[in-house]
């Protein structure tokens, strides 16, 4: 079990800066993020894009800002659990919290700060009859172990890069791959689209265009998918697996079940200290909402500073907090 003062869910710029503000008040932090690196959207989505509204930087590349934040928080020695998704949050009898990840990592902390940005990215699910029923029983939203599909009949749905790439890869592994696409062209990488067309021409895969998977069937495990074409005619295909690959959509995920007040996929907070309706849990950055909320990095930084002042009373209930400027006192490395 990892033990710390503040468990920060989300290692984007706001979560990272929260380490700094907490560190000034001698509070230790541990960051958890489902992405394999710190930086959130900045590193994952637009590392090379310039940002123009960080005070003091007329322009700064997103990744450079993340690198600077890493340097800035280094004296406070934050812990990191990266590439793991937070699943559970439980209040302990002594008033502390235990955060649990999908990999079984446990982090015990006195304060929880949710800095989860857009939330976690979950597979976008198509509208298919009995889809949920066959999840884990033939329906998958990602390919993890290609060998699991050896000698099986697979139906892949989607028109993006991942649908094309997995169709090509699994064509050599599976007994038969059927690719179903609602359009009649592919915008993915030209090489991949051409390769898929070639596999279809030579009969190695089946390509079903202008069609949608509409229903699943089977006794216990998936056995058959029903595909509807543009002319409204149904065809039934024998299938052991159905893999819809329709990209990812940001969702709040498990956070939704923690008893927090939520408005339109954002956590409601008190702007006094960015606390949620649950004592000891704060929410800062893009994931929170309040009247006048702006989803800006600089607002997340501000929220982190106020959160830390308030979180202090949970971490050091017997101490009085006196505000100090870094220009007067500098920063003190945490032990």
């Amino acid at each position, binding site marked *: 079990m990892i033990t710390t003062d503040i468990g920060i869910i989300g290692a984007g710029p706001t979560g990272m800066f929260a380490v700094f503000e907490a560190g000034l008040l001698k509070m230790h932090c541990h960051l958890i993020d489902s992405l394999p690196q710190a930086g959130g959207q900045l590193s994952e989505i637009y590392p090379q894009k310039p940002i123009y509204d960080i005070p003091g930087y007329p322009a700064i590349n997103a990744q450079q800002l993340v690198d600077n934040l890493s340097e800035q928080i280094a004296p406070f020695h934050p812990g990191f659990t990266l590439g793991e998704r937070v699943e559970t949050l439980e209040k302990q009898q002594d008033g502390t919290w235990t955060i649990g990840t999908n990999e079984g990592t446990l982090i015990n902390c006195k304060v929880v700060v949710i800095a989860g940005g857009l939330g976690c990215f979950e597979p*976008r699910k198509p509208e298919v009859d009995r889809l949920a029923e066959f999840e884990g029983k033939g329906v998958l939203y990602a390919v993890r172990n290609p060998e699991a599909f050896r000698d099986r009949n697979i139906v892949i749905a989607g028109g993006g890069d991942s649908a094309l790439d997995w169709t090509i890869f699994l064509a050599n592994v599976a007994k038969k791959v059927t690719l179903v696409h609602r359009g009649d062209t592919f915008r993915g990488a030209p090489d991949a689209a051409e390769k898929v067309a070639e596999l279809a021409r030579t009969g190695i895969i089946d390509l079903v265009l202008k069609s949608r998977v509409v229903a699943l069937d089977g006794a216990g495990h998936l056995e058959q998918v029903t595909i509807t074409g543009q002319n409204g005619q149904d065809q039934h295909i024998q299938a052991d697996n159905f893999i819809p690959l329709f990209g990812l959509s940001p969702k709040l995920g498990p956070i939704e079940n923690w008893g927090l007040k939520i408005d339109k996929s954002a956590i409601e907070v008190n702007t006094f200290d960015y606390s949620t309706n649950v004592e000891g849990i704060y929410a800062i950055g893009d994931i929170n909402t309040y009247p006048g909320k702006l989803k800006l990095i600089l607002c997340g930084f501000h929220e982190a500073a106020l959160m830390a002042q308030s979180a202090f009373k949970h971490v050091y209930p017997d101490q009085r907090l006196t505000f100090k400027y870094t220009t007067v006192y500098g920063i003190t490395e945490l032990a």
Partner: protein
Amino acid sequence: MITFNVKDRDGKQTAIEVPEGISLNLMEVLKGSGYDILATCGGMALCATCRVQVKTGAEQLPPPGDAELDILDTLPSIEDNTRLSCQLRVNESLEGCHFTIPPED
């Protein structure tokens, strides 16, 4: 003034007037006008929660760019002339268009 029509999820149609020369996209105007649009990603063409159907005037709009086409491609089922409102600049090209807000995901 630029005027276009918006039909919400309950089927209520409203004409929206926006001054020319404002630097906003359609998603921002729709949100600002009180429409229930998530726009989780804030306009980066990532989440597709701001998508609208263009019922009239699709041909007068600038064609979708790569980022928009990529995300539209990944959606399981969409109507013809579906666009991401965050990728549509509010300018004369919207004049007279009819937009419908589709049901939530």
